[in-house]
Structure formats: C-alpha cells, structure tokens
C-alpha cells in the first residue's frame, strides 16, 4: 500500500477543488448545551479510503450524520464534490445525493422489500429505467457485493448480519456513486467475515474508483484497507495520516493508546 501523503500530493496536483471529495471547514455543532464539534476540519481526497476512528462517544456517527445532512450544524462549511451543502437545495442537492451511497450499521434495508427491490429503490427513485434493465443491474450489484444469486428474493429478516451488510452495500452502490459512506462496516462480523468484507471494500473501491469514508474501530480494517486515518477526539480531528505514520508518531494520548497498544502492534507486525 502506498502512503497517504503520496496520494494527497498526487490528488492535489490534479488541481484545486476537484481533488477533494469532502471538505469540512470550521465545523461547530452542539446538541442541547453540549458542544460536540468545535472548529473541526477534515479533508477527504478523491479515490482514497479514509477511516474515521475515535473512542466511543467521540461523535463519529454524529459527524457522519452531519455530513449526510441528517443532523443540523451551527457554523462552518461542508463541501461535498465541490458544492457547499448548506447552500444547495432542491434539484442540485438531489444530484449530489445521487452521487453518494451510504451503508448504515445494520444495513438499514427496507424490511418490507426483498433484497432485489431494496437495491432497485434508488434506481426507481432517480432514474427511469425499464424493469428488465433494473433487474439485471440489481442482480449485478448483488453479485458484486458478494451475495449468492438466491439471496435476491429474500427479505432482510431472512438474512444473517453479514449478508444484510452486503445487501446494504449493494443498495449503496446501486447508482454507481462517487463516494461511499460506511458506518462500522465490520462491526458484528466474525474475523473471517470481517476480513472478507474488508477485501470486498478494497476490491470495489479499486474497480469503481470510489472514495470511501468509513467509521471504524477495527484495527484490522484500518491496516488492511485504509489509505488514511483521521482520529476524532476532543471535539475535533486530532491526527490525520496513514496508519503507519500514526503508529510511528502518535502525537496524542488516545492515538498512542489505540495504535501503539498490544493489539495494534500484533496486527501491524502481521501486515
């Protein structure tokens, strides 16, 4: 794996705004009287896999939901694919939403629809395609997400946790997005399932040229698939860099404990 800094320079060399998939500047958010983020800055470059790590309650999920527009924020700016999300509305907003896909923690599949229908939901909503094409495309996405063909006609309640995640990923990929958001993609999976899911993410990222923003606790995932890690602590991003850089130079107590602990050392040695 090449280091993240090489890629940053490569991306930056490609020029200006288009190098950033997501750009957060001076983000401040409170819930009630509690300050969640204070002057938070974060860049996600195109074509990279970024992991957002942090302790429980650090606000990783809140940050994701804020970027997705599911939660309001007080001040600062969120720029996705070159447009400032706080200013775009209506059609323009929808056209940005079409360019991202989200995998929620337990897949968040619609329980009354089969997997095939779930994958077709974004296509029905945003495009006007003949049913045959939608069926073909949805089956393709289901196969690309690593599900067997007979899973297409099952309901979410008939799937295991790992399969629900794969089905959720198939739905997130339905419209060939540019950015994919993953919320703890490997949580609740056994180590073998988690490793398979990591490989799947890596493969799809390469094949489809995706930018991946993922929340994760999983050190294995971080070392296996991530180009860069951003660590969320003390209400802002305290460290950014490739996993190796953070191991060599943690620079923050939480990062040191996380990346230089017993478990991290074993994984790093193995990788």
């Amino acid at each position, binding site marked *: *794996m090449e280091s993240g800094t090489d890629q940053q320079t490569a*991306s930056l060399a490609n020029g200006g705004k288009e190098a950033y998939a997501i750009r957060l500047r001076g983000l401040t958010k409170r819930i009630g009287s509690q300050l969640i983020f204070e002057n938070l800055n974060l860049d996600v470059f195109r*074509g990279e896999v970024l992991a957002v790590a942090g302790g429980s309650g650090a606000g990783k999920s809140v940050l994701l939901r804020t970027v997705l527009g599911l939660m309001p924020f007080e001040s600062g700016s969120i720029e996705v694919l070159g447009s400032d999300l706080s200013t775009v509305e209506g059609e323009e907003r929808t056209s940005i939403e079409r360019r991202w896909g989200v995998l929620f923690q337990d897949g968040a599949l619609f329980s009354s629809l089969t997997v095939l229908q779930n994958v077709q939901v974004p296509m029905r909503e945003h495009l006007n395609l003949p049913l045959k*094409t939608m069926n073909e495309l949805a089956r393709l*996405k289901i196969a690309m997400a690593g599900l*067997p*063909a007979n899973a297409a006609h099952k309901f979410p309640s008939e799937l295991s946790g790992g399969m629900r995640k794969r089905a959720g990923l198939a739905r997130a990929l339905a419209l060939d997005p*540019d950015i994919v958001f993953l919320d703890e993609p490997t949580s609740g999976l056994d180590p073998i399932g988690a490793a398979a899911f990591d490989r799947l993410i890596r493969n799809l990222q*390469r094949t489809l040229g995706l930018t991946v923003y993922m929340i994760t606790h999983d050190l294995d995932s971080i070392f296996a698939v991530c180009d860069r890690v951003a660590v969320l602590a003390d209400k802002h991003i305290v460290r950014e860099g490739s996993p190796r850089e953070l191991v060599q130079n943690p620079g923050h107590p939480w990062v040191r404990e996380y990346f230089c602990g017993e478990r991290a050392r074993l994984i790093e040695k193995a990788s």
Partner: protein
Amino acid sequence: MRPPAVSMLNRHAISEYHPGCRIAPDAGAVRIELSGDWTLAVLEKVHAALPSSREVPKGAQALEIDLARLQILDTAGALTLVSFRESIGGTAARFINVRPEHKILLDEVARAASAAAEAAPRSQPIADFIRRFVSALTAIGRDAISLTMFLGETSAALGRVIARPSKFRGTAFIHQIQMTGLTAVPIVSLVCFLIGGVIMQQGARQLRNFGAETLAIDMLGILSLREVGVILAAVMVAGRSASAFTAQIGTMKMREEIDAMRTLGIDPIETLVVPRILALIVALPLLVFVADIMCLAGGAVMSKVYLALDTPIFLQRLNAAVTAKHFYVGLIKAPFVALVIGLVGCLEGLRVTGSAESVGTQVTAAVVKAIFLVLVLDAIFAIFLSASGF
C-alpha cells in the same frame, strides 16, 4: 495507488460524449469501434447505439470490440458491453485497446454477471399461492394446539405456585390488577354508558310501534347483564391488556431477557405469565360489574330523555324484569374470558423472535385472536347456558 481518472469526472451528468458505435470490417476480422460515455445516465442512448446481433457480419474469424475511444464507463455500461459481447459470439469476441481502469471494471462485472446468472431461482406464483394457503390453514390448527399446550404449561406452573406459595409474585400480581383493571375503568365505563343509552333508545323506538315502549327496559336489563356488559369489558381488555402483555413479554424475549431468566433458574411462566393471568381473572369480573352498572345507567339516562320516565319508575320496571340469575350468567363468563385473553397475550409475547418488527406483528395477532376467541367463547356459553335452562 493512483486514483482512476474516471473519478475525476462527474459520471452522473448527461455526458457531452454521446455513446457511439461503428462497425469497421477489416481484412478477415470484424472490428466494432465504440466511443463516448457509456453510463447509467445515458443508458437509453447506449442501447440505441449498439448494433443488433444481426447487423454484425457472420462468419468472421475474429470479432474485435475496440474500446480505445471509450470515455467514461460505469457498471451499467460495463454490463451492457459484457452482455453485448456474449450476444455476438461469446469468447470469439474480445475487447481490444482496453484502458486499465476499464479492464478492472469489465472483468469484475463479467465475473459478477455470470455469478448472478447462475441459479437464480424463478418464482412460481401458483405453487407459492397454494403453499401460503395451506400453511395459513394449518396455522389455525397449530395455533389451537399451542394454545392448549400453553394452557397446560400455565396450569402446571400455577400448581407449583400453589404448592409453594412463597414463589408467588405478589407485587407483580397487584401491579397487574392495577394496570389491567383499575386503569381500564374510565374507558370501559364510558363505552358501556354510551352503548347502554343506544340500546335503550333503539329498543324504545322499535317497540313504540307496538305501544310497548317500556319493554325496552326489560330488554336493556337482560341484554346488558347477560351479554353486552361482559362482551364490551372483555373486548376493551383484550385490546388494552392482551396487547400490553404481548408487547412487554415480547420485548423481554427480543432482548434475550427470557433466556437470561431461564439460565438463572427462574421460570418465566411462573414469574411473568401466572401473575398476569391471575390478575386478569380477578380484574375482569370486577370490570364486568362496573360495565353492567354503567350500561344500566346509560339506559336510565336515555329513558329519562327519550321516554320521559323518571329514574324511580325505571328502576322499578328494571327490578321486575331482571333477576340475579341474569347477572350471574354474565359474571360467570368473565373469569374464563379473562383466562383466554391472558393466555393469548402471553403466548404471542413468547412467540416474538429477534426483530422489533416481530413485536408489532405479534401484538396485532394477539389482539385479533383475543377478540375472536372472546366472541367464540361467549357464543359457546350462550348456547350452553340456555340449553341448561339459565
């Protein structure tokens, strides 16, 4: 890793590069040159641009699909290309001048498409319908069996509690009486008061044709005490308490609390089911009494308004019409009805499986089954009691 050039462009915009296709017969080989953007956004144009398999000359030694001038490719475009290659000659046709980022995508799509194509089971609507119909029919039988088994289990647990009274959960029992009985008093009273009034009004109106308006009081008295009071109270309790039991026990089942109880050596039937059912058996007769009184009160008010009968006269007439027998006939049903409501509510709760959705399904099932069984039981009692001369 280099970010592919593809991601630098907006794949979702309507492209400036229309998808195009040109057939150029070379010496010996047929070459199909593709150009433009092949994406989901312009999929119609992509399909229009592709030649049908008839237009591709037959008998050529080699078919080459030239992708040199292809701009942007996404999965939809790649799928179209892969199936086009299949349709014109399978492995005899091959892609040439493929850009590396297109090649990864085409290979992956070809792999996934063949995986998707194999063993996609077709749905069989008629067979599925018959299967569903039969399983719905047998479900009634299975329900009856499981309810009977559950009655047995509960009786056994009740027996154990009677043998060792220290096991009895007194606090839960009193709490359940409050929840199922006391808090139901306002709604049961209101409903019975209104229905009593309606029975009185409708009865008087019809009987007026025969000049026998006052017989409406006889009708009200007998109907309220024998049937209406107990049915209304039971239906209200089935709606309130059967659903509450299912939701409470179902939530515990969903969060594995029931399993935790079993591993700790606590019998969930003894702790959760027995107090609830006993509480209902105590509370429902009391509610039936309240319901009876409120029905009669509603009738009394209506007779004053509608028939201009003063309350003392109404009471006199009522006293002549009904005997204690009618009251007991209504009351004797209450504990049995309570048992059925409690059993159905608790059983459906224990049937909840892992998901929150299943709690909702089971609550609905509990209410429907409880009300249905209340009415069936009432009908059986009506036949039985009148046959035995009550």
